């Protein structure tokens, strides 16, 4: 093998190595998204509540603004989760009722790092629930 061919081989190996490392780091970043606390569940009475804003499509825009202000720091701007908080598009999150999501937003899980947002007026918390339902 000529010197030039050997150099090309080394460069190709380096590029492959860098691509592999980047892929691995992406996998690591993805794996760093915090898992959901599966033991954390809403009481049945709270979970049965219905979102009073379901027929108010105009309320969703306010929900998006609230989400970016209140939730995106931890859950990510797209709700896909970060190292601080879980992915809100996971099927087991989306499978929860509106009432259960409202209860979790209101109550928080302080030992799991989720603050309580009961200081927000309840209509605003329902707007956040609307936003969580439209995360695509």
């Amino acid at each position, binding site marked *: 093998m000529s010197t030039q061919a050997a150099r090309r081989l080394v460069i190709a190996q380096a590029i492959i190595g860098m691509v592999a490392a980047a892929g691995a780091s992406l996998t690591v970043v993805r794996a760093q998204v915090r898992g959901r606390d599966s033991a954390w569940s809403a009481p049945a009475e709270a979970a049965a509540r219905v979102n009073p804003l379901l027929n108010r499509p105009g309320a969703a*825009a306010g929900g998006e603004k609230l989400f970016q202000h209140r939730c995106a*720091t931890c859950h990510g701007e797209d709700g896909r989760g970060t190292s*601080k908080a879980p992915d809100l598009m996971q099927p087991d999150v989306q499978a929860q009722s509106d009432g259960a999501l409202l209860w979790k937003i209101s109550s*928080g*899980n*302080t030992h799991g790092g989720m*603050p*309580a947002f009961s*200081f927000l007026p309840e*209509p605003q918390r329902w707007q956040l629930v609307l936003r969580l339902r439209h995360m695509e």
Partner: protein
Amino acid sequence: MSVPRTCLFLALALALASRAHAQERAYFVTYDHYLEEPGNLEIAVATTTGVPRGNDSSYSAPWIELEYGITGWWTAELYLEGVTTRSDGSGFTGWRWENRFRPLKSEHRINPVLYLEYENINEASRIQKEIVGSGSLPFEPIADLREEHVHELEVKLILSSALAAWNLSENVIVEKNLSQDEGLEFGYSVGVSRSLGGLASGSACHFCRENFVAGVEAYGGLGTSLERSLSDTRHFIAPVIAWHITDRSTLKASTAFGLTDASDRYLVRVGWAYELSTRGRK
């Protein structure tokens, strides 16, 4: 730390930080059960301007507050405070280190928080973040008062409830002077507040009702264990308002009206807080 170094530290902190939403309470004295979010740092500057009764000189007592969310259930705060008067001088009045612990995992009808604070201050301190015991403030030259150092330990039981759109908070305060035997000093504060908004608007706005929180708080001393009497105690009632200017910063103001002869006539408080996330997004 020198002023340029402090500025450099703050500039670095701001540069490295990512967005965090301010959830600053409207109260100046009363604490509710909402702790700082984990990894968030709140930098606040505020001042208490007092107008005493009689001929005593009015004063202004500024403070800097650094509040950090260590975990979801533990928030720590450092205060640096000073005082300036029209005719009695100015000076640094000490520092305070406070910790708040929220023992319960989720929201309840009444949410308890335990508050522990160590104070290394002097007798010139006038920020009046809490009022305990009895007697009016000492109005002597600031230089003389600064010679009298005080080490104090303060414990509060914070009880707070979210009732529909309202917050109702009650604080019971016990303070022990570690430098002199003054027994235990007692105090209280209660506050009620609510957001002025209902549904959030879809557009960005600074003056929407949803960005304002209004309320009222009352606070005062309840005597000491050595002198079980309410005579000569100070009590105030204070309307409060907070304006969330942006998603990071909050401006708040209050005028407290003195209710007894031992109380100053008015306390005007103004504060500005800026919140940032030190852990960022990963």
